[in-house]
Every structure is written in C-alpha cells, then in structure tokens.
C-alpha cells in the first residue's frame, strides 16, 4: 500500500475532513429535528460550521494552575481517534473490504478515546466543576462499555469473525431475535457514548455549567465540538455496519440511498430519545447500564450462542 494514499485516506476521505463535514451536517439534523419537536424553526443549514469556525477566531484562555500541555492536547487525541475510527469503518465500504482481522476490536478501543480525552482535559483544567464532570464521564464510561461490547459480540458470534467486512458480508444481524435485542442495547449505549440526554450528566448545563468543557474556550473548545459532531456520525455508521448490513456502494444508487436512510433513521431515533427523556442522575445511569441493559445484552449473547 502506498503511504501517500494512506495519509490521504486518514486526512481527507474517509478520515478527518469527510467525517468532520458529514458530522457537522448530522449535528445540524440533530438541532433541526430538536427544533421541530419544540415547534420552532431551528438553525440554518450552515450553523454548526459557523459555530466551529467562530470558535477558531476566539482567544484561548489558560486557567490558572492548569497543566498546559495536557489541557491543550487533550482535544486533539479525541479528534484523531474519532477520525481514525471513522476511517477504519469506511474502509469496509469504500474501497470494498480493505479491512484486517480484528479491526472491530481496534474500532471499539478507538471509540472510547474521545471520552478519555474529555476526562483528561477536564482534570487538566483544575476547575472543580470540570473535575466533577470528568469523574461523571469516567463512571459513565465504565457503565456503558460492558453492555456495548456484549452487544457487539452478538453479530461476532453469528459470523464467527472479528473482521468488519465479514459481518457486512454475512448480512444484517437484526434478522435474528438476538440481533434485535443487541441492536436496542447498542442504541442505548450509543446515547451514553455521545453523552446526550438522558445520559448527559457529565456536562449537565444546569448544574455543572458545561461540566467537563467549563474552562475550555476558543480553538480547543471548537475541536471538542467537532469531535462530538464526528462521533455523532461515526457511532451510528458503526451500528449500521455491525447490525444493519452497512451501506453497499457497488450496486448502483438505490442501496446507497437505502444505507443513508438507515443511518439517518438511527440518528433520528437518538435525537428523539434525547428530546423526550429527562436527564438521569449518574448513579441511576450506572444502575441502568449494569442492571437491565447488561442483563438484556447477556440474554442476547446466550441466544446468539444457541443460534437464534
């Protein structure tokens, strides 16, 4: 493989630039659907782009006593990981099947790094509210990671492979009862992974005034916002790939449209959950994920072992 081509893939398509642009468009969909739920008109199409570009011209304030290097580099870790995860997922679609054995495990690890970068950044800022947000983010990470990995295990058991392309080739996992349970579990975990309501305790606008991001301003905050938008794109596309059969790019326009609809459907489900549920406390969230959700995921794994 040509190194220049690989770098182009990471930076432009399907890595950083592509993920950022589609992620920002997705965050516009999120805001527009939210506005329609609240009977409003909502922001213009380019609003997420304006928001991020505006932050790039703002001053970066350094809080007194903060660890300078970690504070400024934490957003970059998160963005790099989100871009890399997106690239690995898209390589299963275009160019078709350029995946390696075990890439699902790599993607699972990469998808936790944005949350880890938020934790690092919040602790580096030395702000008590940010530390509280960081500790909540940590608890939430511990809570949803177990059921999420169990849910991803279900299609892996169906296909006996940890290569993303084999999962795509084997057809959608939601055809089987165990796949449907695992898909529902994964959607709940995705809601927490994106720290959207009802699992947004780490950034709780009303009590923690922005939580983990409270001390961030200017370009680092913009990069965090961009990372959130990129995750809003990467997570649903990962679930589409693992559970719903992915997006086929080599059979004309209809399957591409169908794939885009699958993706938008998952996004709209996430947005509707976020608009109709109140925020839960962090202990309620941990109880919820380690109790009923993990149980449901275990049932799905056992059903998958029995071939259902």
């Amino acid at each position, binding site marked *: 493989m040509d190194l220049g081509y690989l770098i182009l893939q990471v930076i432009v398509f399907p890595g950083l630039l592509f993920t950022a642009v589609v992620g920002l468009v997705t965050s516009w969909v999120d805001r527009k659907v939210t*506005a329609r739920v609240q009977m*409003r*008109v909502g922001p213009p199409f380019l609003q997420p782009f304006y928001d991020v570009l*505006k932050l790039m011209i703002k*001053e970066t*304030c350094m809080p007194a006593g903060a660890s300078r290097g970690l504070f400024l580099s934490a957003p970059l870790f998160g963005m790099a990981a989100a871009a890399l995860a997106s690239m690995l997922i898209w390589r299963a679609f275009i160019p078709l099947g350029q995946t390696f054995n075990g890439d699902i495990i790599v993607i699972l690890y990469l998808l936790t790094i944005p949350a880890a970068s938020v934790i690092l950044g919040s602790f580096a800022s030395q702000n008590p509210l940010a530390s509280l947000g960081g500790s909540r983010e940590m608890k939430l990470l511990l809570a949803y990671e177990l059921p999420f990995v169990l849910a991803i295990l279900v299609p892996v058991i169906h296909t006996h492979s940890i290569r993303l392309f084999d999962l795509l080739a084997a057809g959608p996992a939601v055809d089987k009862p165990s796949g449907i349970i695992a898909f529902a579990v994964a959607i709940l975990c995705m809601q927490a992974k994106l720290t959207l309501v009802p699992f947004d305790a780490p950034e709780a606008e009303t009590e923690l005034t*922005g939580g983990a*991001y409270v*001390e*961030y301003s200017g370009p680092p905050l913009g990069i965090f916002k961009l990372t959130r938008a990129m995750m809003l794109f990467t997570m649903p596309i990962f679930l589409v790939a693992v559970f719903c059969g992915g997006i086929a790019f080599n059979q004309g326009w209809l399957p591409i449209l169908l794939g885009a609809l699958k993706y938008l459907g998952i996004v709209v489900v996430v947005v509707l959950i976020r608009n109709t549920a109140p925020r839960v406390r962090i202990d309620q969230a941990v109880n919820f994920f380690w109790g009923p959700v993990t149980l449901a995921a275990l049932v799905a794994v056992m059903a998958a072992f029995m071939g259902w």
Partner: protein
Amino acid sequence: MSFAVNMLTRSLNVFHLGGSACNNCDIEILDTLTPRYDLERFGITLVGSVRHADVLLITGIFNKKAAIRLKRVYQEAPRPILVIAIGACACTGNMFQKSYNWDVPIDKYIAVDAYLPGCPPKPEAMIMAVVKLVKKLRGAK
C-alpha cells in the same frame, strides 16, 4: 467585512450575568430564549460558562462588592467579547443611584457595546438590540 466578524455575528453565544437585579430582566431574557422567539434561527444560544461566551448580557446594578466580580467575569471571558447592558438598572443605576452601596455605572468598569433601557425591556426590544449591534459590527447602515 472580515471573516472573523462574519463568523462572530452568525454564531453568538450569550452568557447571562445578573447583578443585584430584581429578576424581572432575567425572566425577560429567559422569555426571549424560549421557542416562541426561537433565537437559534440566528445562531444565538445560551451557554453556562463564561469561557464559551461571545456576548455578556448584564442585568441589575453592580454595587461596591458586585462590581469587583463583574470586572473579574469580564476578564475571564475570551476576546472578542461583546457586552449588552439590559434594563434601566444596568444602563444607569435607575432608582438605586442614591443607595448607600451604589458605586458607579457599569460602563466605568467595562466596555459596554449596547444599552437597552426598559424596566424590564420586552423580548422584542432585546432582539432589536442584538440586531442593531450585529448590524453595527457588520458595518451595515
């Protein structure tokens, strides 16, 4: 019009800073941000942390003790920052000018970009103030 001004005026994050207000202006600010007026159409959103702010909405009088906090919050905000004094108290001190703890009007401490009198100003008036400020920044007549 420069790129920076264009981006700033299209995406204003407002931070609400209440002095010793009677809460009337604060309630009107919250009314302005409700779905009825839908300020997100213009990219205006309320933020919780002053580090995320582009506009400070200041209500109430700032007495000798609160004025120190006002200056500190203003210094904590990332530049460029705009300031709108909302309500008669924030603009002039209103009827509290003869109080024992009255200091000076807030524009002696920080640079105020727009004054919006009224007790309290209506949501429509607040939107008009923001529109006028945006027009001034963009250099339009």
